[in-house]
């Protein structure tokens, strides 16, 4: 929904509401005593809808069970951009809270006019209006006539303070789980529309390929082949037949392929292929797109006097490989092309951006397109959802009037969805004679992380490059180099360091398509910084926890570090041969949730993470169990990334396209995880879904260094990497 008028300036502090100021775009009092809330944020397992329902129930004084969340659609949901960056509670939650507070005030004013009782003498009990504790016979539902909420929000009104909360701030069971434990249709993948047909895309055999000929596959009657340039797809009347036909078409097609990928065994060489030193910062703008990397200072605070006191210097390099989202559900989409209008069902994290990208890519008026969101599996960043939506539209265009459902295969998802980029962080620091860090420099090399549709120009949808006349997708942007976005996320250490310089080197070629993967650059940056902190602590002869505490200025940082040290039994833990304990800490983005982790790591015949303890401060908490679930999940996923995962490729294509070639941690391998929430009354809410990844990877790396007696700086921390590090030492 676009803003219809200048919103009241007081709303600027609530950006989602300022952009969508009409109250009825946020909530409705529905028949049957229900409250329907509308949000632009989508559910993908992070529990955001439950938390938003809690916020609405709290502010309206209705039972949580009355609140339903409407599916997100470009047709009638508030446009809140993409559901990403752990921002849903801040953005949607604050808007919804304020919209509910204003709706409540409006209806209480109406009740006051009817009863003659002043509004401030009225109270609400589960939606019923009371005076002096007695029913007035009025309720939200009797008062909210048609159009009652079709008005713009006023300047913000006071909302209920957390100390008066009874629904928010307490663990609430997830609204979506009953369907999921009984197998009721709930996912996009479960939608069956009348006369629906089934499509599959025949992906090229290499990332850069040209379709020479489709050959003459022997296809059963009724199968439609769609070709546009090097885009090749088929449509059939069942998914099984579509899959079978796609295999026949793939076998018959002839392609010209280009070997376009770097050496998978030399990621450092790839990332550093033109040394940054040869690209002075001042002249970088003149280098244009021919330069291999764009160098941007992220943070600089120079203190030559402090730097001059450095008595000991250390430097080290840390890397991560390309990582896959590896959603449990390969992407899926449905589209219907009805002459004038195009309707799409997608599990995209940003249906508005997807609508605009589809319109731009296909040269359609966005007003002709509607994108409905339906749940998919967890995404962990930008996976293939948006690309599958374009595939569905391209196929649906060939059979107007009929919905076409496109199902990606596991190989499609692993081989063609965007990946989290490989990264290198080069760190150097100096300690003074007292073991204090006085100078720090950090250089980060990476492809961009901000590759979602519509970001950085262009629609950025996979199949567009394959269509006749299609252009290769430009390298992914990386956002502002602030230390909060893209590859610079958490590149600025959260420690007191007088002389500091951080520089980003964004690659300007993109042989492998990259985009956002949960926590973006924070995963490697925090792994690097916190590994390096341990190396510096060792130099200084200090305990790793004490060394961190000596360098933090923020008391909330100190509290999570102290808390995790206390409940993991950090001090005085007996040492076992082949077992180590490591700590890691970060404040996510440098400005959001705090997280400290301790990991117990075994390095005997293999690298095994046994236990992880986490202490987190995410400000005001809406659903404590939801926070714990997100932190636990973040920790396990991070342990999987850190010890197992690595996208493999040859010179032409991604080769880690199955669960065999891209293993993730299994039930017999996952660590035990314990989470403590450190209370932070009065502090603003922050997200919880991405705070654990960096600290956990670092804690594992530090635990492994102790367990194996050798430092491994290249992820993943596998047995082979330990052996390599031992051989190199």
């Amino acid at each position, binding site marked *: 929904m676009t803003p219809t008028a200048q919103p009241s300036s007081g709303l600027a502090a609530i950006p989602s509401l300022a952009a969508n100021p009409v109250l009825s775009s946020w909530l409705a009092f529905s028949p049957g005593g229900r409250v329907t809330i509308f949000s632009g944020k989508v559910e993908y397992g992070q529990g955001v809808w439950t938390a938003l329902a809690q916020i609405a129930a709290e502010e309206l004084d209705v039972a949580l069970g009355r609140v339903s969340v409407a599916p997100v659609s470009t047709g009638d949901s508030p446009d809140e951009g993409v559901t990403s960056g752990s921002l849903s509670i801040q953005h949607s939650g604050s808007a919804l809270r304020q919209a509910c507070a204003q709706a409540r005030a409006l209806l209480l004013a109406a009740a006051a006019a009817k009863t003659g009782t002043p509004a401030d003498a009225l109270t609400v009990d589960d939606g019923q209006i009371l005076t002096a504790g007695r029913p007035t016979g009025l309720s939200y539902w009797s008062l909210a006539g048609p159009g009652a909420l079709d008005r713009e929000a006023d300047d913000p009104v006071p909302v209920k303070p957390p100390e008066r909360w009874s629904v928010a701030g307490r663990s609430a069971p997830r609204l979506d789980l009953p369907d999921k434990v009984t197998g009721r249709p*709930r996912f996009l993948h479960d939608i069956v529309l009348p006369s629906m047909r089934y499509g599959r895309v025949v992906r090229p055999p290499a990332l850069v390929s040209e379709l020479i000929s489709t050959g003459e596959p022997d296809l059963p009657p009724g199968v439609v082949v769609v070709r546009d340039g090097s885009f090749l797809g088929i449509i059939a009347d069942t998914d099984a037949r579509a899959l079978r036909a796609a295999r026949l078409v793939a076998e018959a097609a002839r392609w010209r392929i280009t070997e376009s990928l770097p050496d998978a065994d030399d990621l450092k060489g790839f990332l550093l292929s033109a040394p940054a030193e040869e690209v002075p910062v001042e002249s970088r703008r003149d280098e244009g797109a021919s330069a291999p990397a764009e160098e941007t200072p992220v943070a600089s605070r120079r203190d030559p006097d402090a730097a001059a006191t450095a008595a000991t210097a250390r430097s080290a390099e840390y890397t991560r490989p390309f990582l896959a989202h590896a959603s449990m559900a390969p992407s899926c989409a449905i589209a219907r092309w009805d002459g004038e209008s195009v309707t799409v069902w997608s599990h995209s994290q940003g249906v508005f951006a997807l609508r605009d990208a589809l319109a731009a890519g296909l040269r359609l008026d966005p007003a002709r397109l509607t994108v409905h969101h339906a*749940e998919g599996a967890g995404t962990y960043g930008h996976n293939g959802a948006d690309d599958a939506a374009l595939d569905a539209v391209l196929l649906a265009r060939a059979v107007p009037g009929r919905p076409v459902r496109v199902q990606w295969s596991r190989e499609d998802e692993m081989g063609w969805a965007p990946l989290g980029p490989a990264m290198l962080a080069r760190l150097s620091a100096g300690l003074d004679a007292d073991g204090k860090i006085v100078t720090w420099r950090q250089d980060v090399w990476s492809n961009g992380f901000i590759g979602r549709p519509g970001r950085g120009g262009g629609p950025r949808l996979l199949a567009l490059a394959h269509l006749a006349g299609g252009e290769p997708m430009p390298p992914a942007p990386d956002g502002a180099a602030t230390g909060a976005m893209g590859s610079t996320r958490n590149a600025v250490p959260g420690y007191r360091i007088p002389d500091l310089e951080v520089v980003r080197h964004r690659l300007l070629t993109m042989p492998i398509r990259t985009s956002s993967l949960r926590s973006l650059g924070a995963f490697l940056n925090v792994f690097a910084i916190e590994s390096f902190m341990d190396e510096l602590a060792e130099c200084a002869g200090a305990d790793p926890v004490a060394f961190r505490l000596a360098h933090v200025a923020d008391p909330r940082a100190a509290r999570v570090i102290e808390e995790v040290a206390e409940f993991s039994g950090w001090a005085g833990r007996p040492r076992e041969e082949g077992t180590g304990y490591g700590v890691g800490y970060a404040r996510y983005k440098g400005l959001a949730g705090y997280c400290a982790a301790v990991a117990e790591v075994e390095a005997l015949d293999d690298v095994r993470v046994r236990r992880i303890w986490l202490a987190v401060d995410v400000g005001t908490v809406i659903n404590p169990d939801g926070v714990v*679930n997100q932190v636990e999940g973040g920790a396990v996923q991070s342990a999987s990334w850190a010890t197992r995962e690595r996208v493999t490729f040859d010179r032409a294509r991604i080769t880690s396209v199955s669960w065999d070639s891209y293993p993730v941690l299994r*039930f017999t391998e996952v660590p035990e995880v314990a989470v403590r929430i450190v209370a932070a009354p009065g502090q603003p809410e922050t997200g919880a879904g991405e705070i654990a990844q960096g600290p956990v990877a670092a804690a594992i790396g530090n635990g492994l260094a102790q367990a194996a007696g050798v430092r491994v700086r290249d992820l993943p921390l596998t047995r082979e990497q330990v052996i390599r590090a031992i051989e190199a030492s």
Partner: protein
Amino acid sequence: MEQHELHLTVNGADHTLACDPDTPLLDALRAGLGLAGPRFGCGVGLCGACMVIIDGKARPSCDHPAWAAEGTQVTTVEGLSRDGALHAVQQAFLDEQAAQCGYCTSGMIVTAAALLAANPAPTEHEVREALDGNLCRCGTHGRIVAAVLRAAHQGSGPGAR
């Protein structure tokens, strides 16, 4: 392709459906019988999202030909709850809030139900071993193990079978 008449017994009911002879059981259940619980994840039996119980044993349905299930008893997650009463494992998943995205959940529940039917009091290690072929990408493993142990503990409860 010649259509094949398929006779399946799913969740206690007999069904006859026409399908291509090489149709995987997963497709017969989802497209043929409209059951959404078994889910497509990989197509080659490596992730567990499509788990069903065939004659008491949990196994992937995506790489199992539908014809090979003829003459067997097939149970999907939909067949675990009866008359509105959840199976002990389903209830335990709710009690432990043992999911995030929930896409793997029905496969997890099916595997766990088959385990508990064969071994009503498994150790934690046995639970982990039984679930090792079921992948979860959200990292809810700890909660899932806790849910299965809880269900085992409450095994004689009203919903248990």
